C-alpha cells in the first residue's frame, strides 16, 4: 500500500537507496575503468551516507560522548573530502553517480 501526497515535491526531497545500485559493468575496457570508478564511488557514498545517518541518530538519542562526536564528525569530513577528490580525478559528477533520484527504468 502506498499513499503519497504532493508527489512532485516528495520526489525532489526524498533520496532512495535504489539509485545507488550499480549497473552491470561492461567488459569493454574503455567503459570498465569508468564503470569501476562509478561503482567504487557509489559504494563510498553509500558508506558515507550510512555513517552520517547512524551518527545523527545516536546524537539524537544522546548516545555519543564528546570524543565520539569529534571522531565521527572528522571521519565524515574526511570521507566527503575524499569523494570530492575522486570525483574530480575521474571527472564524474553527482548526476553521473546517480546520487540524486534519477529516472527509474520501467519493468
Amino acid at each position, binding site marked *: *500500500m*502506498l*499513499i*503519497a*501526497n*504532493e*508527489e512532485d*515535491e*516528495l520526489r*525532489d*526531497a*526524498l*533520496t532512495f537507496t535504489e539509485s545507488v*545500485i*550499480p549497473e*552491470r559493468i561492461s567488459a569493454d575496457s574503455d567503459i570498465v575503468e569508468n564503470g569501476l570508478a562509478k561503482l567504487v564511488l557509489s559504494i563510498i557514498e553509500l558508506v558515507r551516507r550510512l555513517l*552520517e*545517518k547512524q*551518527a*545523527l*541518530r545516536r*546524537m*539524537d*538519542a544522546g548516545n555519543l560522548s*564528546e570524543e565520539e*562526536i*569529534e*571522531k*565521527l*564528525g*572528522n*571521519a*565524515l*569530513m574526511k570521507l*566527503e*573530502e575524499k569523494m570530492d577528490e575522486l570525483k574530480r580525478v575521474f571527472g564524474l559528477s553527482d548526476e553521473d553517480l546517480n546520487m540524486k533520484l534519477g529516472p527509474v*527504468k520501467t*519493468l
Partner: protein
Amino acid sequence: MKSVVVGVHLHREDIHVDAVAAGDLWYSVVEVDDDHPLADRDLVLRVAKIRAELLDRATFIAVRYGFVVGLSGAAAPPPPQWRTILEANRTNVEMTLKVASSTPAPRPNRKDFQSGASYLRALHDSAASIDDDFKHAAEKAVNPIESRWLPRDNASLEMAALIPRARIEEVRTAGEQLKRDFPRVPFLLSGPWPLEVFANADCE
C-alpha cells in the same frame, strides 16, 4: 547455486519458498546461480515480490539484502532476541511514513567548520523537522503500538510504526484522511512491511 536470504521466520510453514534452518528459526531463501550478480535489477525485484508474498502469510524479520548462505544445509544460530521479537510480534507489521520537510535547511558546508564535532552538530541541527501539528496528526492517524521518528537527512524524516495486521485497512483510510487534512505536506505512507526497524531490540 547460492541462497540469498530474505527473512528470519518462526515456523517452517510460514515460508512458501526454500528455507534453511538457523538454530530453532528459519531463513527464507531464494536460490540463484552462483555467478548471478546480486545487484541484478531483476533479481532484486524478484526478491522484493517474494518478500511481499511471505509477509502475506506471516510476519518475519527482514534480512538486509545481499546475504547469502552456503549449501551446507544449515546456517549459524541467530541471536536469541530474534525469537523473542518474532513471538511478540506474531500479528504485527510495520508501516512507514516518510515526510519531506517544507523548509529544508541547506546542508552545512564542511569547509566552514574547523572541528569534527562542530560539523556533526551543524549537520544534526540542519536535519529536517516538521510541524508538530502534522507529527501529532500522523501519529494519531496511524495509532501505532509503538512508533519511532527517525532522522533521514536535511530534507526528510520518517516514522516507523508497529501496528496489528488487522488494522492495515484502517490505517490506509486514516492515511487518505491525513492527505486531505494536510494537502500541502509531502508525505508517503507505505506498508505493510516485515519487521525492520523494530527488529533491532536495542534502541537505534
